[in-house]
């Protein structure tokens, strides 16, 4: 963040420091702006303004410095100050609202701060203002409506990357403040690891990100960036309450009361000159919207920062979350419950699964030390520990898995010459699992990476590569090389940017995919220890353009050729002795597959600056090429069309808005009968909000038309849910 917020050094270096204090306000209304980011050259950190718009920058090297302020939805502002040693200088800023903001800063695409229009791949941003406006209650809800992103029963897809594999083997890497956080055993993502109130913004990098992030980043990277700790003593209380609509048809009624949900998060923080800390605790309860769908969730999140000098910054984050939930599993089909003469009961469950429930605990601890050696050199060292622990209480067996993932990373950032930035680093991760269905295994990953960006006139060219070594159970290392090249080319007038990138991504099979041995309905699931990494070459051509002050577009053509794609396959095995036929699921490396398409996003302010609208459309073509006796066919669980429309009207402290999401039917499902009812989801969300000073009230009516649909087979998606959220900030 530092490198983008601070401009080139102006004054001579000073050994003594000064303090800059001030406020940030809306130039039009005079309203204090919370969460504006303030940074100064020479300081290793930025600070966020508090609810009163106040900030304090400490440890600023004396001399002439530039203090710069950024906030989403406003034009950035900067001021040049001359600071004497020991000075305490006031610098207030008034930001002008900017309907179109062409220069948000992202930190994920290149493992460093970059302006969005200088990034070679597509990046979608979900800012805290959008999170607040949409009044979402979970992190996956926050990510779900981003362009090109779709969730299938908790499994994230970026441009159709993953499909639906019951949570196993995500082809998307989750980062929490840059720390990898995919499960050590299943490779999936626990979206409830952090409360949504702790998330300041989400960066979604689309396409292969393995050149910097290695395995799991085959389809993209989602980085959850947590809130900065403001200076001073602060508190924040967020409480939610709501209810679920009952089934629209009486023959589907399954309870005689209205299902409710409620939650509370409380945060306290203190930010001093050298030490800052925050602690959040909270919980949620939900009755669920269908039978056997209750859940209870508790979480604690702590953050700490230590600034021993003006050039060093230590971040600590620790989170623990426990979720105890009933497992609704598959809906009831005729004969499996009191079906009332219906061929299926989407709100009820198969009685044979009655009582199934799960306890899922997850903890993440990470420490990151950043040090700025000089304006040209900085480094970062990081260590992390992720632990996931689940127990599925089901009949006839209880399954469990405990996994640890220990990670470490060293990264250096060098600017050897003007216009050139080099990022180098090394990363290692040790994963282990103890489980009755995955058994006891371990996986070691070691990697080194480097990427260089060179400015060539107005263009920027990027080239880099990463080599990963992976060993399972202490066996031989297998190496995977992931190169990437990219080019950003501004058009005339600075309102048009072309970007081109090509690279190779990969994903090592998760321990679960290699060693799972269990039963899934009528199928047995067999291990495949010889499963190898899947790889993919990806090409993307993108364009971002601004048309006047009213319209901004971002479009990208993408093309991915995947080899050895890991997909579940069904095999019929015949016992030669008895002739009995059994159906077996096994993860296998498919020969080749293709995912290609078009990703378009349009943002417009059609009538008045108070009204903002957006349209995001993804056209996806997938193909699994013919192999063995399997003919060419679409990849399973990928929709051809994904459309999201949004509109928001803001006036003073009031806000009204709506989202509409259309997803076309899957061309192919697997493991489940294609005769299962399936419709194309068309979901409308409505929202309203009011904010005055420290208090905000948000109303969200998700799935307002109570459109009943399913994405994952025999799994009803959420019905109309009305939620009220109150947030008070001190």
């Amino acid at each position, binding site marked *: 963040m530092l490198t983008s917020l601070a401009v080139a050094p102006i004054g001579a270096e000073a050994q003594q420091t000064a303090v800059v204090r001030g406020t940030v306000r809306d130039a039009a209304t005079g309203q204090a702006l919370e969460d504006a980011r303030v940074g100064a050259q020479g300081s290793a950190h930025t600070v966020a303004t508090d609810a009163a718009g106040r900030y304090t920058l400490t440890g600023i090297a004396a001399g002439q410095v530039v203090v710069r302020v950024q906030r989403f939805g406003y034009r950035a502002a900067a001021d040049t100050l001359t600071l004497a040693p020991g000075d305490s200088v006031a610098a207030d800023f008034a930001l002008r609202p900017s309907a179109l903001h062409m220069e948000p800063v992202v930190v994920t695409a290149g493992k460093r701060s970059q302006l969005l229009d200088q990034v070679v791949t597509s990046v979608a941003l979900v800012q805290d203002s959008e999170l607040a406006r949409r009044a979402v209650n979970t992190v996956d809800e926050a990510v779900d409506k981003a362009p090109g992103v779709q969730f299938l029963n908790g499994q994230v897809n970026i441009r159709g990357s993953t499909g639906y594999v019951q949570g196993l083997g995500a082809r998307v890497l989750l980062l929490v403040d840059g720390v990898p956080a995919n499960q050590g055993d299943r490779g999936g993502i626990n979206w409830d690891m952090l409360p949504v109130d702790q998330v300041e913004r989400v960066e979604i990098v689309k396409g292969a990100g393995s050149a910097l992030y290695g395995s799991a980043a085959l389809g993209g990277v989602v980085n959850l960036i947590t809130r900065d700790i403001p200076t001073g003593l602060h508190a924040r209380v967020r409480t939610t309450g709501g209810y679920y609509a009952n089934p629209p048809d009486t023959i589907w009624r399954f309870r005689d009361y209205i299902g409710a949900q409620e939650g509370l998060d409380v945060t306290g923080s203190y930010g001093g000159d050298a030490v800052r800390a925050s602690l959040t605790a909270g919980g949620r309860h939900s009755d669920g919207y269908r039978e056997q769908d209750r859940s209870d969730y508790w979480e604690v999140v702590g953050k700490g920062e230590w600034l021993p000098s003006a050039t060093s910054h230590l971040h600590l984050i620790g989170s623990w979350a426990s979720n105890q939930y009933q497992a609704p599993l598959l809906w009831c089909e005729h*004969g499996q419950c009191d079906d009332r003469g219906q061929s299926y009961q989407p709100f009820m469950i198969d009685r044979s699964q009655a009582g199934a429930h799960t306890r899922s605990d997850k903890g993440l601890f990470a420490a990151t030390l950043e040090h700025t050696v000089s304006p040209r050199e900085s480094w970062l060292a990081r260590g992390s520990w992720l632990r996931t622990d689940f127990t599925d209480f089901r009949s006839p067996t209880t399954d469990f898995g405990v996994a640890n993932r220990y990670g470490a990373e060293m990264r250096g950032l060098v600017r050897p010459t003007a216009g050139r930035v080099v990022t180098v680093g090394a990363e290692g991760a040790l994963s282990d699992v103890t489980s009755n269905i995955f058994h006891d295994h371990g996986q070691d990953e070691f990697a080194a990476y480097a990427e260089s960006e060179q400015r060539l006139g107005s263009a920027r060219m990027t080239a880099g590569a990463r080599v990963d070594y992976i060993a399972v159970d202490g066996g031989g290392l297998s190496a995977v090389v992931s190169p990437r090249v990219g080019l950003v080319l501004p058009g005339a007038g600075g309102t048009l940017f072309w970007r081109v990138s090509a690279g190779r991504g990969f994903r090592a099979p998760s321990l679960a995919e290699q060693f799972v041995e269990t039963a899934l309905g009528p199928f047995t699931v067999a291990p495949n220890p010889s499963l190898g990494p899947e790889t993919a070459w990806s090409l993307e051509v993108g364009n971002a353009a601004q048309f006047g002050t009213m319209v901004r577009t971002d479009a990208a053509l993408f093309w991915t050729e995947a080899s050895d794609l890991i997909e579940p396959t069904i095999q019929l095995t015949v016992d030669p002795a008895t002739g009995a036929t059994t159906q077996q699921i096994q993860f296998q490396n498919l020969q080749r597959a293709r995912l290609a398409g078009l990703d378009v996003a349009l943002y417009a302010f059609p*009538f008045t600056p108070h009204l903002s609208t957006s349209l995001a459309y993804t056209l996806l073509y997938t193909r699994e090429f013919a192999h063995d006796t399997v003919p060419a066919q679409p990849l399973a669980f990928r929709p051809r069309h994904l459309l999201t429309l949004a509109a928001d009207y803001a006036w003073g402290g009031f806000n009204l808005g709506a989202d509409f999401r*259309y997803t076309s039917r899957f061309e192919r499902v697997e493991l489940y009968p294609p005769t299962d009812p399936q419709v*194309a989801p068309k979901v409308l969300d409505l929202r309203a909000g009011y904010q005055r000073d420290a208090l905000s009230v948000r109303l969200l009516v998700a799935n307002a038309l109570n459109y009943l649909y399913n994405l994952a087979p025999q799994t009803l998606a959420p019905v109309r849910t009305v939620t009220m959220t109150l947030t008070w900030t001190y």
Partner: protein
Amino acid sequence: MRRRAFAALLALVLNVACNGGLEPIPVCAKGFVGICGTVTFQGTEPDSTQAVYIVAYHTFPHSRDSLFTFQPSLLLLQKLPLDSSAAFYAVSLPAGRYEWVVAVWVKQGFTLENADSTLRETGYYRDPADASQPGVVNVSAQTEGIDFVIDFGRMHRPCSYYTPPCP
């Protein structure tokens, strides 16, 4: 122009969003061949209950040999849900004439060998004109309204219907 385009887009969204979605599909919908109805439960379900099934006989079983000549086949039997005072049911049957549509209570530990002691008739569809007699059902397509009472307090062993009856 922009307002019209916006209004048209909004109308399109509302139109698209307001139709479709998952809807109930009765088992007894067109195309289904079999019987459907509601059974009403009376009495206390025995603790030793393994399951209750609805089966149909083309001809009334008067001997041990004809006990397992019912439809549908053993593999396609579906348990009745017993956790409410009444239950809808739908049993797929081949087209034809059925003299006895009966609910069979199955005791825990049932095997084909001990069927005489672990099965009970616990209710059957009755002739609307003479409730003392079983009702005949002609199945050609979906046959609805085959409603009857399952009384756990009045269960009968299979041999009650044999000739000669139970010793």
